[in-house]
């Protein structure tokens, strides 16, 4: 977990949040829940830390929010991706994969000389 913390940069978290919203509007709890499920609960230090990140995305116009009724009839703040958010998710995912691949290649190296 400590090792993973290192790579869990703000950018990665943002990307995960955008991914969580890529299937449609969700409230914050659902977003947190999805990330816990999808990452096998491995990433979450405290569920609360996700909220400032969500608000920051909203501030930057990547997600938008509406108040709506939840499945159990409570008022909840629903987030959904803005057009900019969609674009960021696509671009970010590609870069992430490129990063992981090159980082992985580097980590798998067996000799100090480049292959």
């Amino acid at each position, binding site marked *: 977990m400590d090792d993973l913390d290192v790579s869990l940069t703000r950018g990665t978290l943002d990307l995960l949040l955008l991914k969580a919203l890529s299937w449609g509007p969700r*409230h*914050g*709890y659902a977003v*947190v829940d999805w990330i816990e499920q999808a990452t096998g609960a491995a990433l979450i*230090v*405290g*569920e*609360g*830390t996700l*909220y*400032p990140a969500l*608000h*920051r995305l*909203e*501030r930057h116009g990547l997600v*938008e*929010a*509406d*108040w*709506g009724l*939840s499945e*159990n009839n*409570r*008022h*909840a*703040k629903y987030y959904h991706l803005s057009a900019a958010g969609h674009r960021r998710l696509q671009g970010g995912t590609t870069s992430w994969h490129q990063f992981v691949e090159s980082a992985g290649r580097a980590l798998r190296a067996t000799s100090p000389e480049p292959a």
Partner: protein
Amino acid sequence: MSGEGPRRVFRLEVGAKGVERDVDAEIEFHLAMRTRKLIANGMSPDQARQQALRRFGDLPKVRDQCLTIDQGRERAMKHADRFTNLRLDIGYAVRTLWQRRGFTTVLLLILALGIGANTATFTVIDALLLRTLPVPHSEELVSIGDPSRTGAVSEGTPGGDIASFPVYADVRDQNHVLSGVYASGRTGRLDAIIDRASSGGSAGDEPEHPRGRLVSGNFFAVLEVPAYLGRTFAADEDKVPGGDPVVVISHDYWQRRFGGERSAIGRSISLAGSPFTIVGITPPGFSGDIVGQATEVWIPLMMQPVIMPHRPWLTDRATSWLLLMGRLTPGKALAEARAALTTIIRRSLIDNASQTDPTGGERALRNRPVQVEPGAKGFSYYRRSYAQGLLTLMAAVALVLLVACGNVANLMLARAAARAREISVRMALGAGRLRLLQQLLTESVLIALGGGALGLLVAYWGSSALLRIASGGSRPIPLDVHLDGRILAFTAGLSLVTAVLFGLVPALLATRVDLATALRAQGRGVAGATSRPGRLGLGKMLVVAQVALSLLLLVGTGMLVRSTQRLEQADVGVARDQLLVASVDAERSGYAGLRLAALMRDLTERVRNVPGVASVSLSENGLFSGTESGTTIQVEGFTARTEADSVVAYDDVGPDYFHAVGAHLLRGRDFEARDNESGPKVAVLNETMARFFFPKGNPVGHHVSADSSTFEIVGVVADIQEHSVREEPVRRIYFPAVQLKQIPGGFKLEIRTTSDPARLSAPVRRALAAADPTLAILSVDPLSDLIRDSISQDRLVAQVVTFFGTLALVLAAVGLYGVMAYATVRNTSEFGLRMALGAEPGDVAFLVLKEALLLTAGGVLLGTPIALVVTRMLRSQLFGIGTLDLPSIGIAIVVLATSAAIAGYLPARRASRVAPLDALRAD
């Protein structure tokens, strides 16, 4: 949160409280959901809540972070919103205005006229009264002398209002308060000939008359004005009389006369028959130190004897003709400079007082004290004489703008009424009142700015037109009236004030909609307005105010026009419509003494033989010439109590003078041919002088001493208005010109004609030239023209105010028409009902007409007392009528009532033609 329904968080601002509430609600929702899930997994509620909080982590820190982010977003949104709103409002306003192009055009035209008139007047006021000379640090300049005496020459005992050359030399050499001081004086009419070769063949030998100015060599150095091309006067120039025949010309003159050719530098130009070399050109925009009379040619002061031969103005202490301007030495205050300069000038005048009149210097200084004032605005002859008239005009155009605002406000009201439903719908949908106000005012501001922009065009044309009329049509007063930042700022400011004036109240009323009533009134846009003193009531109040303002303007117009008529028809004591006045300068051609006396007789004789001439005489100052002479006399048997008692005005005239000009001799006789150089010295007094010195007795036969001679009084003549229709008669004495020690070299011939004097102008000119072709004939004008010129400013103000008065009247009538027409349309059903119930068309028409006249009467009742008070300010400009001028008030009321009747008649006629059935069906 509950019960509010879905709310779009991202668009609407929620406020600081809302931000906190939303964050708390979101966190609480998360905790509740987690707790519920844990309970479902089998935990007890308490445990579940504990666990949820633990899993959430550092709650206060998360809450804080969220709040900070959201507040930032809130602020950004607020700014963006304001900007977006403004953009939306402008877009919306442009669309609405464009949709109603006709309406918008009318508004724009009214405002363009109103604002344009104000800008035009302000432009002239700014150029003449407010603007400073375009020189560096103009605030350091100090003017010495009476700044309005730009073209003056004063012969005789010098005072402090204008300086002789020796006085200038004393000031220049003795003062320690000015870092430099220059002198500037008149050239008189300059005869300039630019020879064919140097002007590219366009000019002949006919002399032209550029506006020249004799200035000391340091003129440009003191003003810190560099040459645009060539050079200004050098430091070693202007030291020796007649020594440096060089001139500097203005950029404007260079462009006009030399087509902006660089080769103009070094060219020769003949002034008064002597060659001068053009050495430099001043920068564009610089037109000298005389505001309102742009200088075209600057000539070194020392060239005065060349320009004006036979006039020793550089040495004569008795000829005062210079205005001085200096730059304060750094650190010196104006008060200090004033004290020092006054002392120097006093000493210079008193130490050099003439031996025959040793106390004259003191006396002249008392009557005409030294004037040391800030010089930043330059000298100006027109400034003082036009200030009052311009301020009257400014008041008139401000009134016109107010009336125009009334009209626009009324139109906006009608518009707002028609839009009441739109507005109530928007308010019902949750638009705030402030928001709607902002939107309506945006529309007003757009219209006003549009009107202002068009107004600038009107002003551009108007200010030059104003100057053209002001100068009597021939050559406009050369004022620089270009549009600059100040004018733009004035117009923009005025437009905004105008927008608030005509836009605010209609907008306030429009947004004070009773929602329920307005919405209920299906399709009838004006619903809810009739029952209370709202819209239409205000519309009528506006009309009343417009009528009142127009009345004020019309009364003022009437008074000015009537006063001008009185001025034009006033008795000036001579046969004003039968006189031709020819002005000659014999001194220039070298005449003096006996030759001069012979020339006078010769000219008189030649003119007398011109067919159509009834009689001829001559005089030094003449009538309405602007020149005047004064002297001190002793009257036999009269003891002067004060020095002022023995000061009189005088003129020296030819034989038959009073008969020729058509004056009324009260006692004794006219001058005759026998009153010549060898005859006994005689004089004639005017009535005022006779009454002052001989309150009871007959002055004829008594003696007066003047000019170190004794004259016998041979006649008394009724007072003549010699220089202005308005002047109070002064004590005046007339001498035969040829009996004075120094016969005047410049004089006027007064020619009484049997028919229209203007037609004899050319024959008289020919007759004069026949006597001596070199003789300078300065002018030949009918006296009636000279008199008209002397009151040209009164005529101008009256004409322009009449124009604006008419404009205000038309605007007010249009306003009245608009309100009545609108009311008629709205009351169509009422009229229809009345007619269905048996009313005659005439009755209905009368109803409408009555209302129009009632509104007018209201305006008259309101306006009359205001007019009575306000027109008192015109007092100083009136002639021959009192400040309570009943005819003017009467005329104004009749004109207004007539206009109101016409404005009311059209809607009345329409009302009377309502078909009852149509009207009822239309409801």
